C-alpha cells in the first residue's frame, strides 16, 4: 500500500556533527544516515566535514576516509570497489548507485548518503535485501533443459546469444528495484525491475526449454503489471542496463503469445 510518510520508529533525527580537525580549506559536508540496532533510538543524520584535498574521487572513498579517520563506528557494505560486486549500492544525492563508481564531484552541495530506499535497515547504510533474494529465487534463475544430455554442449547461435546482452550483465545490486515507487508500495508482491530483468534473461535464452512456463509464471497483475514505466530503474542502474525495457518486452511477449 502507498504510505508516503515514514513509520514513527523510522523518523530521522538530527545527529552528531564531526568538525574538521585538519584545517583544510577544501571541505565538504557529508550527511550520513545512521542507525544503531543496540540503542533502540530512531535513526539520525550525522554530519561530517571531510577534507577533499586528500580524498580520491568516488563516494566510497569518502566513506572509507570517514571510517578510517573520523568515525570507525559507521557501517556499510563494500567489497570490490570496481563496480563489479554490487555490495556498495546506496542512495547518494537522492539517486541510487554504487558508491565505488559514483564520483562525488557529480553531487552538488552537501553530500547526502542514505541506505537503499524503503528497506528494513540492519544498521547504518545496510539494508535488508532478503525479500529481493527470495523473489529472485522464485523465478528459478538457472537453465532448464531436460531433453539434452549433461555432457554435450548446447549450441547457441550468435544472434541468440546477442539477445542476452543487456540482461546477463546485471550484478543484482538492487539499485533499480529500490528506486522504484511501485516496488516501494508493493514490494511484497511486485517482483521489481531487478528480478524481472533476470526473468527476462531466462525467458529469451534460446537454450532454455521452459520459456512458456516462465512466461506464465510472471504473467500476473501484481508480479509484472505493477510496472507503470516510471523509469527510475533505468536511470538508477549503475551498469547502464535497461530493466524497464526488459519488462516492456515481457509484456509484449505476453500480449502476442498464445499461452
Amino acid at each position, binding site marked *: 500500500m502507498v504510505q508516503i510518510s*515514514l513509520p514513527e520508529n523510522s523518523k530521522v533525527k538530527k545527529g552528531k556533527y564531526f568538525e574538521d580537525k585538519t584545517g583544510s580549506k577544501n571541505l565538504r559536508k557529508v550527511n550520513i544516515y545512521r542507525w544503531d540496532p543496540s540503542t533502540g533510538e530512531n535513526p539520525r543524520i550525522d554530519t561530517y566535514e571531510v577534507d577533499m584535498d586528500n580524498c580520491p574521487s568516488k563516494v566510497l572513498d569518502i566513506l572509507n576516509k570517514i571510517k578510517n579517520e573520523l568515525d570507525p563506528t559507521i557501517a556499510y557494505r563494500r567489497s570490490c570497489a570496481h563496480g563489479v560486486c554490487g555490495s556498495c549500492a546506496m542512495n547518494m544525492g537522492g539517486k541510487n548507485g554504487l558508491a565505488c563508481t559514483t564520483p562525488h564531484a557529480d553531487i552538488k552541495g552537501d553530500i547526502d548518503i542514505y541506505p537503499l530506499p524503503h528497506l528494513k535497515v540492519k544498521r547504518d547504510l545496510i539494508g535488508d535485501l532478503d525479500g529481493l533474494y527470495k523473489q529472485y529465487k522464485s523465478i528459478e534463475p538457472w537453465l532448464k533443459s531436460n531433453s539434452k544430455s549433461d555432457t554435450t554442449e548446447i549450441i547457441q547461435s550468435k544472434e541468440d546469444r546477442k539477445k542476452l546482452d543487456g540482461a546477463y550483465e546485471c550484478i543484482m545490486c538492487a539499485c533499480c528495484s529500490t528506486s522504484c515507487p511501485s516496488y516501494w508500495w508493493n514490494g511484497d508482491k511486485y517482483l521489481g525491475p531487478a528480478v524481472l530483468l533476470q526473468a527476462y534473461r531466462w525467458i529469451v535464452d534460446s537454450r532454455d526449454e521452459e520459456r512458456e512456463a516462465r512466461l506464465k509464471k510472471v504473467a500476473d497483475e501484481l508480479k509484472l503489471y505493477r510496472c507503470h514505466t*516510471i523509469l527510475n530503474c533505468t*536511470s538508477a542502474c549503475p551498469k547502464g542496463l*535497461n530493466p524497464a525495457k526488459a519488462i516492456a518486452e515481457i509484456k509484449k511477449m505476453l500480449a502476442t503469445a498464445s499461452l
Partner: protein
Amino acid sequence: MENKEPLSPHIQIYRWHISSLVSITHRITGIINIIAVTLICLWASFLLFGESKYENIDIFFNSYFGKFIILGVTWSFLFQILSEIRHLIMDLGYGFEIRTTKITGLIVIFGSIILTITFYFIGKNFI
C-alpha cells in the same frame, strides 16, 4: 523485536526525474479527468432545467475562477492524451533509452502547456 528495524527513507529523499514526474502527473490528471467528465455530464444535464438555470453556469464560466477551471481541465486532458501516446509507444517497446525518455517527457510537459495556450487563443477568436 517486532518492527524494531526502521524503514529507510524513500520518497522523502529520492530525486525526481522527468520520467517519474510525468508518470505521477499522468495519474493525477487521470483522476482530475474522471471528475471533469462527471462535471461535464452534469453541465450538459443542466440544459434540461431551462435557460434561466443555465445562465448561472454561464456566469460561473465567465468568472476568473471558471476560466481557470476550463483552462486547467483543458491542460489536464491534453497532458493525459500526450502522455498516453508516450505510453503507447513504450508499450510497443520503443523509447526506453534514458535520453529518449527525457525528450519525450519534456515534449509531454511543454507540449501540453503550448497546446493549452493554443486552445485558449482558438477559443478567443471564435467568441
